[in-house]
């Protein structure tokens, strides 16, 4: 009677302490029927990759407001690959300057969302990307 659920890790790398956005997203994905593993503040890329491995997630959502996305995102991608989790899709929410977006997409980030993004759009994009 059990069925496959979309599992999402919501993580907040870096040193800023603003987790409102991450919590809003966690709640929205929960209400969309997904299982959200919430890890809390100040996660290192190593901690995030480790949690993604143990939890066998389909998606990692990163909340980054510190401006460090060009350092954090490639590192997390690299660690996920190293662990054999190439199929995991990464979404980023936060403050990302327009000029960085193409480079992040090129690296393999699936979706990037700034202030005012609709949670319905994000849910739809996650479902599309995972296709359970």
């Amino acid at each position, binding site marked *: 009677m*059990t069925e496959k*659920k979309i*599992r999402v890790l919501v993580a907040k790398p870096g040193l800023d302490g603003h987790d409102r956005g991450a919590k809003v997203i966690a*709640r929205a994905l929960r209400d969309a*029927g*997904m*299982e959200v593993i919430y890890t809390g503040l100040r*996660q290192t890329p190593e901690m995030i990759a480790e949690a993604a491995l*143990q*939890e066998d997630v389909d998606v990692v959502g990163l909340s980054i407001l510190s401006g460090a996305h060009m350092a954090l995102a490639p590192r997390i991608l690299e660690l996920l690959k190293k662990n054999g989790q190439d199929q995991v899709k990464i979404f980023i929410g936060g403050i990302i300057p327009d000029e960085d977006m193409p480079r992040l997409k090129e690296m393999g980030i699936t979706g990037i969302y700034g202030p005012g993004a609709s949670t319905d759009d994000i849910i739809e994009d996650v479902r599309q990307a995972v296709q359970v």
Partner: protein
Amino acid sequence: MSLTQSILDGNRLALARLLSQAENDAPEGRADLAELFPHTGKAHLIGVTGAPGTGKSSLVNQLALFYRKNPDSRKKVAIVAVDPSSPFTGGAVLGDRVRMRDLSGDEGVFIRSMATRGSLGGIAQKTASLVQIFDAAGYGIIIIETVGAGQSEVDVARLAHTTLVVEAPGLGDEIQAIKAGILEIADILVINKADRPGVENTERALRSTLELAHPTKRVSPALAGGTRVRHHGKDMSMAAPTTDPMMWIPPVLKTVATEGIGIDELAAAIAKHADHLRQSGDWAARDRARLGSEMETLLQEALMDRFHENVQPQKYHEMVEQVLNRNISPHEAVTSLLNGNLE
């Protein structure tokens, strides 16, 4: 290479994959589960339950740290942390890892979050399968953290060898403590947040409850040869020293998990309980009860599946309509369905 071999070789990705397959009851995982089963039966299964906000996750974090640091017991530690699924959307926010960040970076610790997916007993239906996989993979200590439990989420006691019930000051009076349910399943009672006001009351309530459950034999001090206790000039009877080794009386321990206070004593009590189970034969008895109830559950699922395969959904719904219209009673409907008499 099969998942089984990779898991036995210590591959954590393979382990994570099979955990998912078991959780989803995916047919492709069943052969691996069966192959791994002979490797199970070595781990000490520790259940941790209690009301929401009593500090279960923080306590589990500290226990795992203790087991990893203590050279006597440097076993691999697995944690299965269960949180509730929404009854409306089926979604869940699993937040127990937030309190367990001290454990990251240690390859000897594996934390897996699980949603209840509709189960009401405090753990998920497939928690037992996940525990078996960890056991086979060589995790010597497996800690099962339940959802924030109210009074009757007691399934963890059937799964674990040692059950910790975590309380905190200010949660209820003695009447709460003598109700049936969660306190009865405790092998060890932990009062966490013991630096909070009201801890004396909580401790007194729990101890008096225990005394009701395990009435101590009372003897006259003259016979026992102990100290004389006098009340209004009369000799009072007093508790005989408990010498019955077959009897386990749950200890009441105080901890402050966020500070790591009381953890050594708690781990010692857990070890003592494990020794007690082995010496009294209860270890084997609990294993038998656990596997028996797991078989029972699987049998129920299989019978339900078989039943639904043989009954057309339309006929089934017609029967529900009949009950709804008060033409037949639910009992009669079931009898009729089981007899294959669907007209």
